[in-house]
């Protein structure tokens, strides 16, 4: 059995110190890996990333993350990533990591994703350069996601995103802003490559559960939605073992 803890939209700032650490210290009692679905910081400042890095340093389970739009706001995503990685957190952008638990393997393909909307009510890369750049960014991210996810040869596969691949997990948000909260291109990439689960955040007023048109489970793990420090999802048979004690991160980069 592999137990996956997931959360998103922590929006860490200097005032957040100590808010997540108590959960991290006991995480191995409940999970074998922790996945973070972006918006880790308030505005993507290195000093904000340092606060979160200290909360997660020495985590008893591997921590894998993607960045969100907030983490880009100060135009220092590379610095944010470097600080988190120095603390042992694996940050993915069009990349994958593999975690082994006992005899099972879990592959995580991570990307921030982007907006554009959902089939029939979506933006098209047509017209002004700004509009074309907007949609092309989503297309590039989705293509890379499909490539990395499809390249994973593991027992279970998760796509870890910040933006949503489906409308269902946005219900509760104003429909007028759906195009800025996700894109069907992300779902299409997941359905083509295959996966067991898609995790995302970003939509604070959204709903937790959805499914891609191809039948892959989607979960919005923004803390505001799950109303818990994190959610836990299980794969495989329960062999009644403390799998967390045996968790080992192979951290194999796929790209």
């Amino acid at each position: 059995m592999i137990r996956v803890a997931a959360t998103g939209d922590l929006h860490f700032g200097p005032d957040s110190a100590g808010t997540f650490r108590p959960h991290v210290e006991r995480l191995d009692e409940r999970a074998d890996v922790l996945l973070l679905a972006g918006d880790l910081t308030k505005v993507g400042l290195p000093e904000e990333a340092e606060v979160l890095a200290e909360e997660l340093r020495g985590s008893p389970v591997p921590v894998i993350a993607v960045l969100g739009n907030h983490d880009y706001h100060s135009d220092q995503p590379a610095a944010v990533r470097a600080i988190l990685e120095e603390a042992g957190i694996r940050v993915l952008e069009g990349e994958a990591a593999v975690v082994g638990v006992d005899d099972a393997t879990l592959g995580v393909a991570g990307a921030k994703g982007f907006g554009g909307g959902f089939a029939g009510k979506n933006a098209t890369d047509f017209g002004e350069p700004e509009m074309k750049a907007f949609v092309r960014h989503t297309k590039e991210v989705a293509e890379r996601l499909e490539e990395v996810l499809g390249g994973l040869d593991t027992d279970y596969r998760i796509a870890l995103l910040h933006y949503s691949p489906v409308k269902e997990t946005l219900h509760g948000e104003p429909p007028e802003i759906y195009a800025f909260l996700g894109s069907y291109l992300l779902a299409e990439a997941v359905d083509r490559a295959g996966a067991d689960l898609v995790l995302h955040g970003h939509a604070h007023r959204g709903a937790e559960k959805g499914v891609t048109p191809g039948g892959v489970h989607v979960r919005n793990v923004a803390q505001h939605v799950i109303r818990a420090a994190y959610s836990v999802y299980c794969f495989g048979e329960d062999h009644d073992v403390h799998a967390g004690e045996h968790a080992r991160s192979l951290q194999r980069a796929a790209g």
Partner: protein
Amino acid sequence: MEREPRPEAPEEEPPHYLVQRVREALAHDERVNELELQVRVQGRRVFLGGQVPTKERHDAVEQVVHDLLPECEVINETTVQDYGEPKEVEKLS
């Protein structure tokens, strides 16, 4: 031909624009930087809702709007996220 006088601008800013000005301030003011808070304006009262990660940001939300609109009463209904560990586990396969 005599032109019709240009209509005078309303003395009060329409709530439609006022709400958005408050939302922009909450998004860009470094004390808050929250994009998903709910803002409602009724007369000279501004109602704020949603969740914020810390007590500091809960208090800052109110201060930011007070600084922007000192003539308005700010009703801060935001709540601080204080989440515990999950009560259940979802089995997916």
